[in-house]
């Protein structure tokens, strides 16, 4: 009886030792995962944003703007230009809709918002002109 118990214990120790070793290796890997260098999404997006601006892909920019806003209503670090261009494009789009609808309050709000954003755009002012042009000529 005791011999059987000893054999069983020996087998269990061997199995536990193997599991212990595997867990140890996995734990070391988990530290590597925890301390991994995470790419800053804002930094990565900066290049994408620039590329889209260069190709006048404002539709995609506005899509990105709405996607970002699902996480953060106000501008977040690294995405300030996206928020400005997105908000400008939306205001420009809605200004024409309000005009068609005859909503003077909406038109004034959009114009005021566009004016404010334009004053903050700096180097991106020509992009605002391009958006205006696209909206004006649509469809």
């Amino acid at each position, binding site marked *: 009886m*005791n011999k059987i*118990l*000893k054999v069983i*214990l*020996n087998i*269990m*120790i061997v199995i*536990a*030792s193997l*599991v*212990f070793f595997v*867990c*140890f290796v*996995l*734990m070391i890997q*988990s*530290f590597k*995962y*925890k301390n991994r260098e995470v790419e800053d999404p804002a930094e990565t997006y900066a290049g994408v944003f620039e590329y*889209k601006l260069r*190709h*006048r*892909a*404002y*539709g*995609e*920019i*506005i*899509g990105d703007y*709405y996607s970002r*806003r*699902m*996480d*953060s*209503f106000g501008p977040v670090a690294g995405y300030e230009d996206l928020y400005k261009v997105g908000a400008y*494009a*939306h205001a420009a*789009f*809605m200004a*024409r*809709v*309000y*005009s*068609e*609808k005859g*909503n003077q*309050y*909406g038109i004034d*709000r959009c114009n005021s918002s566009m004016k404010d954003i334009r004053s903050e755009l700096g180097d991106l002012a020509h992009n605002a002109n391009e*958006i205006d042009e*696209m*909206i004006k000529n*649509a*469809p």
Partner: protein
Amino acid sequence: MICKKCRHEMGPEELKCPNCGADNPFALKHEQNMQGFKKKYAATEKEVKGFGKAVEGLGKKAAILIVLLIGIVIMLVIESLNYADPDEEEAVRRDAQKNAAAYAQEADAFLERGEYMEYVSYLYAHELMNFPPEKEFGKFRRVQYVAKEYYECIRNMEEMILRSDDPDYFDSLDTDIEIFCMYLDGFYETFEVQKTSEKDEVYLTYILDMDTELRAAMRTYFSMDEAGVQDFIDLSRAKKAVKLQEVLRHE
């Protein structure tokens, strides 16, 4: 002790009287008891030593096993903690529950100003779109269903209208049109249900205004008059897509 035979004094442990040599019954009885105890002691000692020899090392092995198992559990806990990324949405959800009343007030203000896109974005950003607290957001339920569809329609229209005109850039217009048509159908399905179910006149006004605004957007950006918009809405999804191809690609 006193010897019963010669009345001579003797020790309790002396087996015979040192004077007359008579037996000491008390000492003899004691001696017999001691012999018995010694035998029992020897038997017990043998039994205990035998058992000890049989289980020798078992305790040590069990201790090793327990230490290994504890080590495994600790490592698994550390591992799971290392792989667990912080749930940022959870913090936002908690904040939304805590400040639901203030957020509901702000949401109402967006609706009042007719800023439906801002309203939906605001709810999404505060994790209030899908699981809003019933007490503060119950009144918005119907307007929220319609606003969600309106948001998707306007968003897709903006994406289509402001798509890149660069011939070298990827053209996703076909996909955008498909998505827009899907959301437009979704909007009118939701709109028809909610406009008859909404009992609050203020919120009903917002629902009707979203329809008016969407029609105005289609008139503006799809070059249609009111009758044309209605005809477009009544088309099947595939026919809507064909019609939009014609309008937006100038075919």
